[in-house]
């Protein structure tokens, strides 16, 4: 139940978004996010998009190691 899923926003209408997670599409609540647009990436948790995210973890993990 507690697993987050990153997904790409396909469409948004009112407080509902259709997202694509590795090819699987599903309807999720977008009520917690403002200004969501098709093409954005989101973290989905229990059927609700909880945060806008970037799609790639490489840049930021590299930058964190550069600081050490």
């Amino acid at each position: 139940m507690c697993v987050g899923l990153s997904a790409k926003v396909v469409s948004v209408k009112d407080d509902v978004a259709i997202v694509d997670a590795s090819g699987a599409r599903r309807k999720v609540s977008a009520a917690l996010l403002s200004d969501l647009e098709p093409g954005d990436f989101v973290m989905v948790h229990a059927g609700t998009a909880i945060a806008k995210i970037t799609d790639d973890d490489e840049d930021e993990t590299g930058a964190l190691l550069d600081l050490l």
Partner: protein
Amino acid sequence: MNQTIERAKEILTRYDGPHCRIMEVCGTHTHEIFRQGIRRILPRQIELISGPGCPVCVTPVGYIDEAIWLALEKGATVCTFGDLVRVPGTEASLQTARGEGAAVKVVYTPLDAERYAAEHPDEEVVFLSVGFETTTPSACLAVRKAQQDGIRNFSLLTANKTMPGAYEAMKDSTDLFLYPGHVHAITGTGICEKLAEEGVSGVCAGFTASELLTALAVAVTRYQEGKPFFVNCYPRVVRPDGSPKAQSLVAAMMEPCDEEWRGIGIIPDSGMKLKESCQMYDARTRFQVPEMAGRANPACRCGQVLKGELLPTQCRVFGKACTPEHPVGACMVSSEGACSAWYLYGQNL
């Protein structure tokens, strides 16, 4: 293999600093660290211990008894996340209660339970609202939707929990926390920074191999420096102020309460319950649920596992009487439970 993973791996495998106990607060971290083989590359000085961050695992036995009572005595349709169905109560699980006629439906989100209630006005629908800061906003969205739709046959059986009290309760059991990334996507990082000021260190971590290895590499490097620290190693998801929208939604509908954590006991103000203005959606009020203490199987050591005091393999029933097919304790049932992770991956250590 990418360059970041190689760099982080090198830092970890070459670590020769002081012994460092790192508590994986989040059950998904426990599973991902196992699944990705990260435990196998760590030197002896880096010890990973399980923590209380699997919501199903910390849900007390009495809560399962309450859910079964609602289904069997009140005829309610119980909607739940799948993980809870096989968690043992005092005498039965929701799965075995099905055999006695309990209506138990698995849903993906609380909003699905609200929709089911709207489509079945002749049924009383109770959603089993467990989870941390990450899941609680979805439960509040479902209640708000019920209010907007004029749905009156929907309620929550709350056992929602918040992490700060657990951090306080666990801080002496570990050298530093691997903070749960998605909890802090909602709450922000203020509590982690405050704990660092009080001498409790930690890093916020994501879930990919690159994110986990980087978070662990940053954690042990900073630990070696000897000063308390907090580093957000998951900034693509976790922002300092978290999700103000989720915070204000929950604050409008719920309020803190004392809450029981399996194996830990009652932690003051570590739970969330519906406010009086939302009480018609509170299953305990609506059905006058009697108090149920609940009794765990005395052989089960989930409580000590959740506090990082015991490895799952040190429990007498692990892998014998307690397996994923026939779980004795919640940590073996949940897909995020520490015992389940050790059962699935531990033999490869």
